[in-house]
């Protein structure tokens, strides 16, 4: 799994009483309008200079590759004629390619099982550390978050050793082959959960810490227990944060790549070259030099992720606005 967009935390609150500055906002803008022309012109020049490096990068490493992938995906390279415009042939091929479709099905099943499990664990953990302050809860918070700081490659290597019957304790303890064709998807799910549950826990915990304490103080006085407060008050109140971490998890799941690629040599028969759409796109490009087909798969995957996440954001925003 790849960190969604560099894994920047999703919400940062400004220090201090932001209300004061916010109130000053409109006044400041009014002042800008009344300022002499030359000052505005100077600001316009400075504004453009300030955003230029970012804009150049945005064009060079986002728009251009996107356009290039779109173009590639519409062409085919043939021995005789070279690059030929092929309309949507690559897409047609992908949508009828059983290997690709099996990979898509696999990440969907994976997402349907792993996402709720991990978000559930993260939510439980966040509610626990929000409710209890003890030495153990502080240690727990640290322990849960540390895996996030470990590279996915190394996290996967460690679990690979732990799963292997030769070097790890797990299969002799449980008598399960964690790397067989039937189980390896769950074993991969465990790695993702281990690595990302703590990160999601911290995001949800931050949301919980932002809630006004008075609300559940008064519920407590009314006789609500800790479990009731957690489930009936805290959880609904951070639903937007839960939605957000769910979206990021789904985005990561669809792009599932690193963990299967690292574990592949342990059981190449189970983790095939088309195990996930991203592994398939990678292998098509770098093992078979099928750049056009690979671009079509990447583009399709990117489009699904992109449209899906906006629809989801839109749908949840609509619903919360209606409430």
């Amino acid at each position, binding site marked *: 799994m790849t960190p969604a967009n560099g894994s920047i935390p999703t919400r940062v609150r400004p220090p201090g009483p932001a209300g004061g500055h916010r109130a000053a906002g409109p006044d400041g803008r009014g002042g800008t309008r009344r300022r002499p022309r030359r000052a505005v012109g100077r600001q316009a020049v400075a504004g453009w200079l300030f955003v230029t490096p970012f804009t150049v990068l945005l064009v060079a490493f986002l728009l251009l590759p996107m356009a290039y992938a779109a173009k590639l995906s519409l062409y085919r390279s043939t021995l005789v004629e070279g690059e030929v415009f092929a309309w949507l042939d690559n897409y047609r091929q992908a949508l009828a390619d059983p290997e690709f479709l099996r990979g898509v099905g696999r990440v969907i099943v994976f997402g349907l099982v792993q996402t709720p499990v991990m978000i559930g664990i993260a939510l439980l953990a966040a509610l626990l550390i929000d409710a209890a302050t003890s030495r153990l809860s502080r240690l727990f918070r640290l322990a849960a978050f540390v895996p996030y700081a470990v590279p996915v490659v190394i996290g996967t290597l460690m679990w690979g050793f732990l799963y292997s019957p030769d070097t790890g304790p797990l299969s002799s303890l449980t008598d399960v082959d964690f790397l067989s064709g039937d189980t390896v998807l769950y074993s991969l799910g465990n790695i993702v959960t281990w690595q990302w549950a703590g990160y999601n826990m911290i995001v949800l915990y931050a949301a919980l810490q932002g809630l006004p304490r008075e609300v559940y103080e008064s519920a407590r006085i009314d006789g609500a227990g800790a479990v009731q407060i957690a489930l009936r008050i805290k959880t609904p109140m951070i639903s937007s944060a839960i939605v957000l971490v769910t979206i990021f998890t789904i985005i990561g799941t669809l*792009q599932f790549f690193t963990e299967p690629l690292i574990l592949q040599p342990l059981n190449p028969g189970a983790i095939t070259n088309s195990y996930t759409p991203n592994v398939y796109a990678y292998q098509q490009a770098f093992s078979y030099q099928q750049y056009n087909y690979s671009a079509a798969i990447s583009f399709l995957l990117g489009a699904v992720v992109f449209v899906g996440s906006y629809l989801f954001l839109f749908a949840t925003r609509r619903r919360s606005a209606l409430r």
Partner: protein
Amino acid sequence: MSTVTHAGAPATSAAPARRPGGGRIASHAVMAVMTVYFLLPFWWLLVAATKDNDGLFGSQPLWFGDGFALFDNLSLLVTQDGGVYLKWLRNSALYAVVSGVGATAIAALAGYAFAKLRFPGQGALFAALLGLIMVPATALVLPTYLLMSEAGLADTVWAVILPSLLNPFGVYLLRVYAHDSVPDEMLEAARIDGAGELRVFTRVALPTMRPALVTVLLFTMVATWNNFFLPLVMLSDNELFPLTVGLRTWYMSAIIGNGGPALFNVIVVGALVAIVPLIIAFLLLQRYWRGGLTVGALK
């Protein structure tokens, strides 16, 4: 009056702190089990790093073996394949620092400009940013590689560093932060004093934005240090690999056999050395990690 508060206070404040019985025990038991789960791989790694290759396969996985081979493993690690591991370590550090600092500086400039300056095209550009923020990075790696090859930059350090400088999320974050925390009056005052826009930015805005800058820096550096897909695709010269790609090549050749020496103990100690700086940074910068998500508490 005072008797009322005295009577009321213990009832409400004692309840959360010392609720007796099952709930607290159950919640601590759950936390204890989960702590063991999250720390288990680290414990295994620490123990395994002290074993030689035979010990790795022949002893209790979760306890120390007969010998103590940590130092032998470390010296193997730095000499294996002509000391290439140290180059990987250096590369990882280089990519993380240059990308982290560069991406943060670029995001700070843009975020500040979006929040506090008025310039034509601002709204459209910011809308483009918001629209593109969800484009999945992995879908872009392959076309970026092909473009980099055409520019003659594939298989150079720039192929890893330049794409890592783009951080739309960082721009968004810093824009929100600058908007709420940098007071317009201070900017105006500096302008009236005759400061140029760059000076206003570096002297007035940047110090105020510091907590958010640290967060963006920390998270970009870690994301680059941990990145795998991009360098995997971009680089074929093993001297340019970061740790993640390098360790994977060792892992592959160890499993496949390849006739070479079994490297598993070297990989284990290599993995340990690769995560030690991260764990130390994590523990030292704890408040910034957590601060990244609750900057409000930071000062």
